């Protein structure tokens, strides 16, 4: 059986990088005695994959990992057992059964992610936020008006110029800050910090004067109809 776990990452856990979160969950599975399946071979490892890495410093209400199980376990028991062994800063939100089809795994179906960016009084703390300046509303409209937003995107190997505009699905000012709905996944992936940098540059504002915090709200898959669904909605609760 395959299952999808949704979790929140907050507090001090935002300083733990993606690879260490993977290690953390491997150990957590053992502590919670989840009947997880292993690969074969001389050094077997747990069958576990994360939907989308989360950068250091970012908090999230919607992170996902898919696992394979050797026997069924109820959603309630799994969530309960996992939460008993969590460190402060990671909470398991849900546990659902998902399709056995490899093409349906979290990693392959990710299409978009929803973010909330808050402006901070200082980079020293994410606790003290400041409201988004009134005039940004118009500037954002003008920003989104453009059909091309060319940005130099750096990867580990190369640098290339890409147009990020098509990857910004939605972007709006909210009471808390700026909400962004961005393309994500293996085909097209846009990071919110790059959007913020581009937006600030577009407004002619110095990035260092506007420290911000990023919070991921959820990760989405595309439905055959063209809409978006949070990854957890593609699974079913295990009674």
């Amino acid at each position, binding site marked *: 059986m395959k299952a999808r776990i949704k979790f929140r990452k907050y*507090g*001090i*856990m935002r*300083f*733990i*990088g993606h690879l*260490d979160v993977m*290690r*953390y969950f*491997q*150990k*957590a*599975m*053992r*502590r919670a*005695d989840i009947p997880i399946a*292993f690969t074969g071979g*001389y*050094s*077997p*490892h*747990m069958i576990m994959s994360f939907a989308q890495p989360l950068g*250091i*410093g970012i908090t999230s209400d919607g992170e996902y990992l898919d696992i394979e199980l050797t026997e069924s376990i109820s959603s309630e028991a799994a969530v309960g057992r996992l939460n008993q*062994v969590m*460190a*402060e*800063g990671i909470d398991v939100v849900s546990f659902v059964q998902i399709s056995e089809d490899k093409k349906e795994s979290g990693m392959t179906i990710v299409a978009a992610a929803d973010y909330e960016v808050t402006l901070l009084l*200082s*980079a*020293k*703390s*994410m606790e003290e936020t400041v409201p988004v300046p009134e005039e940004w509303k118009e500037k954002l409209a003008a920003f989104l008006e453009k059909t091309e937003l060319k940005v130099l995107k750096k990867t580990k190997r190369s640098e290339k110029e890409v147009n990020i505009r098509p990857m910004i699905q939605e972007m709006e000012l909210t009471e808390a800050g700026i909400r962004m709905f961005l393309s994500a996944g293996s085909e097209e992936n846009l990071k919110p910090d790059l959007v913020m940098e581009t937006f600030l540059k577009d407004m002619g504002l110095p990035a260092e004067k506007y420290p911000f915090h990023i919070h991921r709200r959820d990760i989405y898959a595309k439905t055959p109809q063209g809409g978006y669904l949070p990854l957890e909605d593609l699974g079913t609760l295990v009674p």
Partner: protein
Amino acid sequence: MRKLALNDEILLKIEKPARYIGGEVNSVMKDKEQVDIRFAMCFPDVYEIGMSHLGIQILYDMFNRRDDVWCERVYSPWTDLDKVMREEKIPLFALESQDPVREFDFLGITIQYEMCYTNILQVLDLSGIPLDAEERTWEDPIVIGGGPCTYNPEPLAEFFDLFYIGEGETVYDRLFDVYKEVRARGGSRQEFLEAAAEIEGIYVPSFYETTYHEDGTIRSFDPVNPHAKPVVHKQVVMEMQDTTYPEKPVVPFIKVTQDRVVMEIMRGCIRGCRFCQAGMLYRPTRERDVEVLKDYAYKMLRNTGHEEISLSSLSSSDYSELKELVMFLIEEFKDKGINISLPSLRIDAFSLDVMGKVQDIRKSSLTFAPEAGSQRMRNVINKGLTEEMILDGAGQAFEGGWNKVKLYFMLGLPTETEEDMRAIPELADKIARRYYEIPKDQRNGKCQVTTSTSFFIPKPFTPFQWAKMYTNEEYIGKAAVVKRGFQDQLNRKSLKYHWHDAEVTVLEGVMARGDRKVGRVIREAYRLGCLYDSWSDLFDNDKWMQAFENTGIDIGFYNLRERSLDEVFPWDFIDIGVTKSFLKREWERAMKGEVTPNCRMQCSGCGVAKWKGGVCVEGKN
């Protein structure tokens, strides 16, 4: 939620912020208002090293079992954060509460190797605690040192209020009770130190004075406070079943050096190698009960979620229930994806069988530590390993499918000749020859014999504590002899050779057998910017040499003399149970190349039998 000592901007700028945030699974949180004693337990090196140390885990667990004590952890900030903390005047803090170390009642520092001494000063300095114990007030914690280097605490004497000599399980409770009593009645710091000096195993360095002969050696070392005793007795636990063990070790968020469950199966070693300090300090050999260990294995794996378990001891092959324990671990955990790691096993039929079960033979290598190349030299150091045993073991391993061997040796041992040095590559070559004796169609490609040499450093409380060391240039010369020797070997293409740094060896030698005067060099080296000296990329020998020059301390005095048998050593006031007369006897036997049998074969009367426990009473009750 806990407030972190470092702000987000700093944490996102430095390497591995997880080193400084605490909050790990199984870390202990308490209400600071509800405890009487706050103890900051420090390993003066980076988090990944410090978190891997078993001793601290044992004490952390033991202290936190007391309701009136909250023990937290402290490590050396890495150089990036060190710089930020100095610039922004951020005091060093403990991981759990994130409170400044200076607010604590105790700062306990474990001193595991000599090259961490400048890091100790860093920890004190960043905490805002005066480096000089004499300048401290009740505004500062009591700074107490423990661990193997405290068996010669003198180079560090001026920086510590107390040293705990021996195993932590015995008198910490009494020390805490005395502390509470003195604080409750509003006693002075001096009164506390005096009361602590009355506890067996506690050494208060400020209560002693040293006088020197004209040649720099010690004339006398005496207590100058009526509460201090002339001899400090090492603390030792005789009943291992009475000790506690951390069933819920802290699980780091980041990968640390020992990212696994570690089970201590035994303390001490029966072997009596004459260069080995641990083998003398931790006598007598005491085993933990195998049934208790099985239970610990279950609990610790369950409570941590680690995917590996390892056994810890000085010589696991001498643990009498090893077979039982290892078979149990394999049967219980192998199928659950748990790796079983077995360090320090002697290579024999049993260990090869077990290793074949727990590791991938093609990828793993076998380790031998002959320590010396020639049989004569091995007899001098009392390493009871013959060439025949090594070649037999290697042969069996090669036939079992292994083709990688690692060999460890020491250079600069007492009485060493060029012939002894050349015997190292010769032995490596004989092992390779043994491999190529196997018919070609039955072997697994070429073999790889990797030889490493380190330079021998005489340590206190060993039969070699009288031995002389060499200069940097002489050490390099010795390594060159070995290197040339390798070039002459038939199978040189299958042999690799590495040698350790000589500069660090020289320094470690001074620290290991130094007296109180050496404290000045450590302080000066730290002032000049030395830090993380055990990290080869950060070690700066020029600064250390400058520190010796600035303080007028002569390296030759500490390293290049063979000490006379009647010389008073800085560590003579400590009684480790093993007598000086036994060590002298062993030194003399070494000079004659005479081997001394191990504790199970025959008691050699080292002195620890007075405690009537462990291997000394095995088979006698």
